[in-house]
């Protein structure tokens, strides 16, 4: 265990060195006047703005939660549609044949071009941001789920059929669990896309949110504040990404060794309590 820790420390150390050099170079360039300070503010100015946003006048939190709420709700709704359509398409070929072209068209049509219409339909509030988030994040989930569901391993399928499993049993006991890893891969792409959708909607029409904050700051010529807002967007993206990663780790436990052991121990314990003392008896004894 010790050496893994030291490896982490080492790589962290390397990252810090590179980071320090970049910061020093950037500060130097700004001080020397190589860089137009108003356009590309030096790191200490950005740090100052971050301090203002997060600690001093704490403006960021309201916008942060609003954009988080918009992106996550968009992801959930987009995800629900994506899953539903993918399940429908995997169960019935003609449904898939007539749905997939429209899904592709929706995916290739840039979300930005749809913004006016979405805002017209869903109004000025959060719902239009959620809607745009849902539209842009629908496709990755739909495609991944559809392919994952239809790529079930032939032999296992035959084994299920040999046991007389119904289409529903095959679906829930085999297709869905086997598809989970790829579905979550789709979720990971979709969550960041949903954030982009929400921010795009905020840029064109919103009263609050990180996108609006960034616009407001850059219009007040506070470029370091605008960059601080941009970094907050990345932070928000990271948080959303990690949420999905954590859920992924818990749901698809059979991918990681230590998770698998934990689950098997728990199931063993559950088996012992429920099955009384009969565990471990050889079958053939009777």
């Amino acid at each position, binding site marked *: 265990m010790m050496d893994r820790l030291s490896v982490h420390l080492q790589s962290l150390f390397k990252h810090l060195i590179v980071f320090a050099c970049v910061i020093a170079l950037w500060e130097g360039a700004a001080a020397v006047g190589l860089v137009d300070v108003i356009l590309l503010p030096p790191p200490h100015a950005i740090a100052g703005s971050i301090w203002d946003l997060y600690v001093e006048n704490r403006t960021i939190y309201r916008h942060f939660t609003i954009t988080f709420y918009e992106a996550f709700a968009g992801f959930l709704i987009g995800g629900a549609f994506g899953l539903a359509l993918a399940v429908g398409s995997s169960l019935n070929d*003609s449904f898939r044949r007539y749905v997939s072209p429209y899904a592709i068209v929706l995916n290739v049509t840039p979300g930005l071009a749809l913004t006016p219409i979405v805002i017209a339909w869903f109004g000025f509030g959060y719902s239009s941001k959620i809607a745009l988030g849902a539209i842009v994040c629908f496709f990755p989930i739909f495609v991944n789920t559809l392919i994952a569901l239809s790529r079930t391993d032939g032999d296992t399928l035959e084994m299920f059929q040999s046991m007389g499993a119904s289409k529903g049993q095959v679906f829930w006991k085999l297709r869905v669990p086997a598809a989970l890893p790829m579905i979550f891969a789709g979720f990971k792409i979709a969550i960041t896309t949903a954030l982009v959708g929400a921010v795009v909607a905020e840029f064109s029409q919103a009263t609050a949110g990180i996108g609006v904050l960034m616009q407001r700051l850059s219009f007040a010529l506070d470029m370091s504040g605008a960059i601080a807002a*941009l970094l907050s967007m990345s932070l928000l993206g990271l948080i959303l990404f990690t949420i999905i990663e954590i859920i992924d780790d818990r749901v698809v436990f059979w991918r990681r060794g230590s998770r698998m052991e934990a689950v098997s121990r728990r199931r063993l314990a559950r088996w012992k309590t429920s099955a009384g003392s009969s565990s471990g008896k050889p079958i053939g004894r009777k």
Partner: protein
Amino acid sequence: MNEIADLTIPAPKRSALNIIARHLAIFLALISAWEISCRLEWLDPLFFPYPSSILEGFWRLYITQGNIWSHLGLTMFAVIVGFTAGSVLGVGLAICVGMSDRLRRYLKPYVIVLEATPRIAIGPVIIAAFGFGWTSKTAIVMLVCFFAPFVNTLNGMISVDRDKVEMFRSMGASRIQTFSKLLLPSALPEISAGLRLAMASALGGALVAEFIASNAGLGVLITQYTGTLNMASAFVCVLTLSALGYFIFRGMEAVDRFIIFWADRDRIEAVGRKRLAAWHSRLGDRP
């Protein structure tokens, strides 16, 4: 990470003509529903022009006025150049990173952070750096198209079957041989999925660049038309983008099926026969 294999469906029992007929039927039903709801004022004319007026718009923009062609050419020029540059960079970098574990472990956190950042927010900064016009538009498209190929290629190279890598080592294969004969071909499905993803976002990227700062392109036309409440023509531009995107997407799917022939049941026999013939022409001995 994710694989967009093609969405085509196994050969249908019904004839192809029959399928097209059904597609058309559904399409016409949708359009007429739209037309009727417009006529009955269910849809707000400000936002939803009559399909018939969109049709007129197509005729006007493409034929009578013909002003859409130059804008379309410009946008597609930026999309294609940006897409090519972005994906070549993405795939190239992924190959270098994939070949050295140390580099991959080092770059991993930055990739995740950059991927989580909504890249369109970086658009204005690029405009400030590259200025107006053609370069910054292509730069934004390139930035948007970089990620999917990079991540997919990297995943494709990493998830190669360990035993095959060991078999190559046991034959004393050099790094380049292992790469060209094993890593690259087995990563191809992932790479082509990444390219398709990139193309879908390339159109969006070009539009963002044109909305933010450009004096020509479909994005500019769309802002001009929506600005003057001429939604019919705006829809013509948007639908042009969607149609182009759709056909390019389908085209890339076909190319994917052609290159990755070993995943396709009937393609595999054809290729086998071709190579048998080539073998005989070379060695000329009996089959």
